[in-house]
């Protein structure tokens, strides 16, 4: 059986539509995941032991279980408990919680890597703990977060392909739909891979640009 890439060409509008959904899911999860990650990261460093413990449990549990299982709990499990959420919402929530756990570790590590002298100098000038974190520590920690955040966002794009199993019409599912009609698995999956690569590559370029722009002269 020879290769026939015309099916890819014909299916391209459909694939691009799927890619758009993938971008949508990823961007929302990226924003929500970053917020969750920042809050959980700060919570883990909090002096409040209950808050720190809660955040530690969250990270341990979410990182220690497969994303697919988490998504299935949200989409197939919760309705049994009377909570029926739309597939798209389940996908976004699942991805956000999952990437948030990794981002919280990035946030925590970056904050801890900032020299204690920075905090001490700020406190000695009369900055409150919150001001010290917001004005002095986080801006410097953010620079150190960027490279690992870039990796995390790329992982997020790739992981988002799992939401196709919740019937969300993303890039992955669009490819599968085309295959179910054309039976051209090889060509279509190659095309899907290329499109995913274009997305992740764009993401890596964006984060690299940000790094360069924010680095102090």
């Amino acid at each position, binding site marked *: 059986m020879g290769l026939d890439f015309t099916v890819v060409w014909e299916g391209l509008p459909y694939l691009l539509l799927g890619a758009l959904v993938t971008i949508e899911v990823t961007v929302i999860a990226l924003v929500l995941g970053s917020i969750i990650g920042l809050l959980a990261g700060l919570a883990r460093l909090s002096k409040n032991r209950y808050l720190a413990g809660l955040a530690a449990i969250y990270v341990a549990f979410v990182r220690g279980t497969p994303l697919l299982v988490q998504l299935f709990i949200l989409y197939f499990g919760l309705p049994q408990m009377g909570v029926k959420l739309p597939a798209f919402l389940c996908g976004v929530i699942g991805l956000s919680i999952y990437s948030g756990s990794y981002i919280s570790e990035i946030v925590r590590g970056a904050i801890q890597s900032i020299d204690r002298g920075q905090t001490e100098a700020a406190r*000695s*000038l*009369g900055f409150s703990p919150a*001001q010290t974190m917001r004005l002095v520590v986080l801006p410097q920690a953010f620079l150190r977060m960027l490279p690992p955040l870039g990796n995390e966002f790329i992982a997020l794009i790739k992981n988002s392909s799992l939401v196709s199993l919740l019937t969300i019409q993303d890039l992955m599912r669009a490819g599968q739909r085309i295959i179910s009609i054309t039976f051209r698995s090889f060509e279509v999956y190659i095309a899907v891979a290329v499109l995913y690569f274009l997305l992740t590559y764009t993401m890596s370029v964006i984060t690299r640009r940000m790094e360069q722009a924010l680095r*102090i002269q």
Partner: protein
Amino acid sequence: MIRVEGLEKSFGRLKVLKGVTLEVEPGEVATIIGPSGSGKSTLLRCINLLEEADAGAIYFEGERVDRRWVNGQWTRPPERAIDLYRSQVGMVFQNFNLFGHWTVLENIIMAPIHVLKKPRAEAVAVAKVLLAKVGLADKADAYPHQLSGGQKQRVAIARALAMEPKAMLFDEPTSALDPELVGEVLTVMKRLANEGMTMIVVTHEMNFAKDVADTVYVMDEGEIIEHGTPDTIFTNPVKERTRTFLRQVLLRE
């Protein structure tokens, strides 16, 4: 102005301060000298509440500023009161601790703007005067990593002065500097002392202690073993341990 009474501090089983008492009057320059590991820096850090003492008391202008043990638990002054106290007592660190993401000017104006709620224009005007005073008027837009150690420390002094502190604490301000850069920092500190600033200076610079200090405290093994005018301490110390320490230091120089 600053009174320390019977201060004790342990790190694990190591007792670093064993009941330190000292009092600094307004306008007084007190230096604390002594061998490494004698607890000098810890004392200074306790005064600025960067470390919390286990026992004893710290008063600033008659007000208790550190935590106290009441009815089986630690009671601290309100957070705002602590921030206010710190804003009135400037601290200069051995490693400068300039904020790396801000320019020299921003390092100096941010605390006045965010803590004292000064208008930016006013903070900038004050910062420029202070930068001129420490001889760095042309470095306002530089970033800390572009400066030498001596320049960094002078910026750190200007940053502390921008809060218009009533007293200044110096924690071995020249120990991290190359020898040729020590002089420029000491000059700034001397000028500050001559202007009547209340200062507590932990230092290894015996000449500074001799020339500038009103009182010299000698610390060893977590205690102040003696104190007095520079004349007494350097020419006629009472304690044998002081003599040994001074002999060792002078031999090194």
